[in-house]
């Protein structure tokens, strides 16, 4: 009877853990790991079951954005069909770290068209880690947590010397194609992995049939990774990744991207010793550059043509080590440094006049060194304590005369600023009885303002129609946070509920500056970044994964976010109650999935950010899959209908109320050899 009630509860739950995308291992309480790795390549054991378990198979063409948007902690701010900006529990931009294998990368777009998440294709992704609360700041002083994308590594363990896969797909909503391949080569102590992905999408069709202009994009992504085993414990690895995008439309913005290019490279040395003290360590050196060229030549009624190029360069080094202090005690050490250069400009053209030029990001550099420690201590068989701390020294500087001259316009000091950031947290978890575990944590963390918040120069925000101006004297945001989560775990299901509360001092917000006139034609005015005394945020996240029968699985996630400024006004970009639920059946070579995605209306709108209320929506997606083997190769066929009822809708976090894609039928094939 009890079992039946639980089953009933599970199926009642409205949402789901993003179905096709990941098998969640909810082992750690403050961090969430999503395994996307194809089992075939990951390990030698190629059981049919494992392959079927892999949700990812359901939609090979899913972008990383599709995947992370299913996580209960993550929301996306959408400005176009591509390049959505991730936020963790309504923390975004400089409040969170978005890293690739721990490496920092800064977008080159002043309009945030290029979050780091666009550079990783699911094909070169091994896992996504979301760290909040207790551990959120370990990779870098931030208040909102860390989203790390771990890149797939060459596989020594593959059964064949050469293995790989080829994927091809088509989607109707944007008449888009998706082509990708992945190759793994191993020989002796050496393994090499290469991937290539091509995507090309036209303007998509929204619910009801309307075409959304300027939602097209085209991109290519390639990666090469080589690993060499120096000895039994030591490996050296190098990773190269390149991403090029062309003609990427942003319907919610006044400009598109003509061309954007990112180049990432790293070399790392890793040692895995099961020695008593120094368990393992890793050193990584990395460099990356991003170039970004915005384009308005395809837009109608452009009053004045403009060019907006931007570039970013980052160099960095990371050292990680894990130490076993004893049977019950473990220490993780991290030390890292990085230097990020940014420059962006805008040039406007008026016939018969000299070009109008200004630096939207005056040439600036951020140099950072930091170190963090996590100490885990098992106090008894059922409980564990975890202490974490991190400090960062950050120097922010304007590095050209033109940049310094420009900041003088507002009477700001062009001197370097040096910040010392401090973070600390403590977490306690206890197994109350066998299937139930409760974890609570409290933390204090700080973050420095971003380049836009410090030095931005008339950055037009098309969502509220204000020009934003940086303020180099901004104080650091300081957050006190607490998080409590409970996990209930048994053979049939896993249930997790987390609540979170944050009190943020010196919250950075754009506030109207009536003394300054706007630069952008049509802008309502100018906002300067200021510290408001405080803001509060809270969230509730729940997820259930249950397998009532061997061949059926239900997954559901629920999230609710809340945020308010000291004035009582709601904060902007706060998601309403949202739920994603999916029900999957796998039988022999066939699989079937029905997924629902729903959001309540959001009436807590941020008036000072020009938000309006957003209606709720309910969507249904269906997916089917078929797998067969042929001469040692595996062939997968997938198809599905997203937004089955062709609902016209947009999310509260979508800029410009641009409707999202309507009914989308897709078909994909994948060959694994």
């Amino acid at each position, binding site marked *: 009877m009890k079992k039946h009630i639980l089953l009933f509860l599970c199926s009642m739950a409205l949402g789901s853990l993003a179905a096709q995308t990941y098998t969640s291992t909810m082992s750690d309480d403050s961090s969430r790991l999503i395994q996307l790795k194809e089992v075939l390549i990951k390990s030698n054991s190629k059981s049919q079951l494992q392959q079927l378990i892999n949700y990812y198979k359901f939609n090979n063409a899913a972008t990383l954005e599709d995947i992370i948007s299913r996580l209960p902690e993550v929301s996306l701010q959408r400005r176009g069909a591509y390049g959505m900006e991730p936020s963790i529990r309504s923390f975004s931009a400089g409040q969170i770290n978005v890293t690739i294998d721990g490496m920092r990368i800064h977008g080159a777009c002043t309009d945030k068209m290029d979050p780091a998440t666009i550079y990783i294709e699911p094909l070169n992704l091994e896992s996504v880690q979301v760290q909040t609360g207790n551990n959120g700041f370990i990779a870098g002083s931030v208040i909102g947590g860390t989203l790390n994308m771990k890149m797939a590594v060459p596989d020594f363990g593959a059964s064949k010397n050469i293995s790989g896969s080829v994927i091809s797909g088509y989607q109707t909503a944007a008449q888009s194609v998706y082509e990708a391949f992945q190759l793994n080569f191993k020989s002796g102590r050496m393994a090499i992995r290469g991937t290539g992905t091509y995507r090309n999408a036209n303007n998509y069709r929204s619910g009801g049939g309307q075409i959304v202009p300027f939602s097209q994009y085209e991109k290519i992504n390639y990666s090469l990774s080589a690993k060499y085993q120096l000895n039994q414990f030591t490996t050296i690895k190098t990773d190269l990744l390149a991403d090029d995008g062309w003609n990427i439309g942003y319907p919610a913005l006044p400009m598109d991207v003509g061309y954007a290019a990112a180049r990432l490279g790293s070399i790392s040395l890793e040692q895995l010793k099961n020695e008593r003290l120094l368990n393992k360590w890793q050193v990584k050196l990395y460099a990356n550059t991003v170039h970004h060229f915005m384009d308005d030549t395809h837009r109608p009624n452009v009053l*004045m043509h403009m060019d907006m190029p931007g570039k970013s360069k980052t160099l960095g080094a990371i050292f990680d080590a894990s130490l076993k202090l004893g049977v019950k005690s473990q220490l993780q050490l991290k030390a890292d440094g990085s230097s990020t250069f940014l420059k962006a400009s805008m040039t406007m053209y008026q016939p018969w006049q000299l070009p*109008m030029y200004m630096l939207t990001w005056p040439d600036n550099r951020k140099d950072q060194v930091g170190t963090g420690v996590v100490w885990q201590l098992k106090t008894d068989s059922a409980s564990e304590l975890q202490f974490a701390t991190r400090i960062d020294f950050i120097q922010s500087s304007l590095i050209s005369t033109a940049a310094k001259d420009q900041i003088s*316009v507002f009477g700001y000091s062009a001197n370097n600023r040096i910040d010392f950031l401090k973070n600390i947290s403590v977490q306690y978890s206890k197994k109350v009885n066998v299937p139930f575990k409760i974890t609570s944590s409290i933390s204090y963390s700080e973050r420095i303002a971003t380049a836009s918040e410090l030095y931005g120069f008339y950055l037009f925000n098309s969502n509220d129609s204000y020009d934003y101006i940086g303020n180099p004297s901004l104080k650091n945001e300081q957050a006190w946070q607490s998080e409590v989560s409970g996990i209930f775990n048994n053979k049939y299901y896993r249930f997790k509920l987390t609540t979170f509360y944050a009190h943020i001092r010196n919250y950075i917000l754009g506030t109207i500056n009536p003394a300054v*006139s706007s*630069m952008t*034609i049509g802008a309502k005015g100018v906002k300067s970044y200021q510290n408001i005394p405080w803001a509060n945020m809270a969230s509730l996240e729940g997820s259930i994964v249950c397998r009532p029968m061997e061949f059926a699985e239900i997954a559901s996630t629920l999230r609710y976010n809340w945020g308010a400024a000291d004035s009582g006004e709601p904060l902007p970009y706060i998601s309403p109650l949202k739920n994603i639920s999916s029900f999957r059946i796998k039988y022999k070579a066939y699989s079937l999935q029905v997924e629902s995605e729903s959001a309540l209306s959001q009436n807590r709108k941020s008036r000072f950010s020009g938000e309006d209320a957003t209606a709720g929506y309910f969507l249904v997606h269906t997916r089917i899959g078929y797998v067969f083997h042929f001469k040692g190769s595996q062939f997968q066929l997938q198809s599905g209908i997203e937004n089955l009822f062709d609902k016209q809708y947009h999310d509260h976090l979508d800029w410009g109320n641009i409707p999202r894609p309507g009914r989308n039928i897709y078909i994909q094939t994948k060959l694994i050899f």
Partner: protein
Amino acid sequence: MKKYVLASLIIFIASLIACTKEKEQIEQDPTLGLIKITEGYANGASAKVVVYCNNANISTGYTRFYLALFDSISGNRIEDAEINLTPKMDMGTMTHSAPYENPSSTRAERHLFPCSVTFVMPSASGNWTLKVDIKNIGAGKTGSFVFPVTVSDPVLSRQKSFTANHNGAKYFISLIEPTKPKVGINDFEIAIYKKVSMMSWPADSSLSVMITPEMPTMGHGSPNNVNPIHIQNGHYKGKVNFTMTGLWRLNLDYMSGTAVADTTQYFDIEF
């Protein structure tokens, strides 16, 4: 090992010292960056006069001259002289003068005597001459040198005039700074002269000035400008902010106490 460290430390410090060692001070040519316009003799003062300007082309508006004087026999520099300018324009039916500034001291400034003339119209309407009266203090002799000046109108005018609403007088405004405008905060300087008669154009300090920059093509202004205030000899100094390059219009409102003198004039700057 220790030895090497020590040795490299010594080399490092030595190179630091070598680098910071002061370079010998070579006196720079005082006319560096200036352009020679003309030269001639001030008969009676036994002086050779060489005339320099900032630009080869003289345009309407405030124009700085730098005079170098040499003993006409020995060729030695004359460092002490009393200099008086008389600009004159012959328009056929009439002649008139223009605002000018004599060197502020009888002692040369880095071997040169800086002075200025504000050409109120281009040579197209007549012929400009500049007469330089020189009293060679060392030799106790007096003489003068007259030379023609060709004045053209620049693309963007740096010289404006208006008839004041409050007293009907004619005022001439010269834009002096910025000469090299940049994005950011710039020095702003104008000189105001009042035309009393054809031959008398004294500096005026009675007006107050308000500056409002705007980009006419985009319809925006700029923040944190400082209204120019009178410093001396009709020169008003303030600050102007440019938030971007391009064409800027500096609107200037002139007041006499609470009475409006003029609000119609502006200067355009493009860079």
